């Protein structure tokens, strides 16, 4: 029974660390950034980290998308609509509007 108790304790500790530590770390570091689209332009995009969320807010009178060149995200926004993208990988992610290919931006993702 002693071994079983020890195994259980270790397992419980493992679960505790998995449940308590990792999400706590993520919650502490993950941030939400707002990028406003207005007058045919994307607003400034701050440097983000993997796990961060970008909230795209379309304040233009026109429908737009924010579409990653690598297709890691593609949000389609009616006027006044907003949508969220969670950044899943690092590096530079150029994006554009599928309806207005002249509209371009880039997200720089710090870390890996």
């Amino acid at each position, binding site marked *: 029974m002693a071994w079983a108790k020890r195994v259980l304790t270790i397992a419980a500790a493992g679960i505790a660390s998995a449940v308590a530590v990792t999400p706590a770390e993520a919650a502490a570091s993950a941030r939400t950034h707002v990028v406003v689209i207005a*007058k*045919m332009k994307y607003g400034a995009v701050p440097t983000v980290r993997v796990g961060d969320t970008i909230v795209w807010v379309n304040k233009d*009178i*026109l*429908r737009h998308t924010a579409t990653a060149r690598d297709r890691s995200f593609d949000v389609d926004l009616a*006027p006044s609509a907003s949508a969220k993208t969670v950044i899943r990988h690092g590096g530079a992610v150029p994006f554009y509007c599928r*309806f*207005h*290919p*002249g*509209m371009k931006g880039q997200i720089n993702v710090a870390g890996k």
Partner: protein
Amino acid sequence: MISRFTLCAAAATFALSAAAAAHAAPPPNDAQIAHIAYTAGQIDVAAGKQALAKSHNKAVRSFAQVMVRDHNAVNDQALALVKKLGVTPQANGTSASLAAAAKRKARELSMLKGAAFDRAYVRNEVAYHRTVNGALSGTLIPNAHNAELKGLLETGLSLFREHQMHAEQLAKSVR
């Protein structure tokens, strides 16, 4: 090359005659400017609908859908603005000649099919946006008195410049 040169020359001639006419005629007032801008938008909505009825090219259809949606959106804003300002858009010679030229072009395009239609539609979109953008930056925006009207025209100009670039890119793929 010859056809592209002819097209450029035709567009240049049109722009020049429009500029000459602008010199001779008194500058348009806000009610006339609103009418011209609205008419120009309606013309491109109609052209987009014609393309959606005739074209089977995916890229051309996507472009036409954007034209219909964007020009309708800007015109809706224009209507809301003139209502708010209590301005009644005023018919004028520039609007009439834009509408007459568009009618001729629509008839010409209606006789074409397939790739020939796609090429002609997209080329005309390039030339048309160039002409309208020239009129916006050279005549309509400088003469607009109301700040909100001027602002909407400026928003329109940045949109239509993007449309022109989009059409120029598309023209390379359908030639």
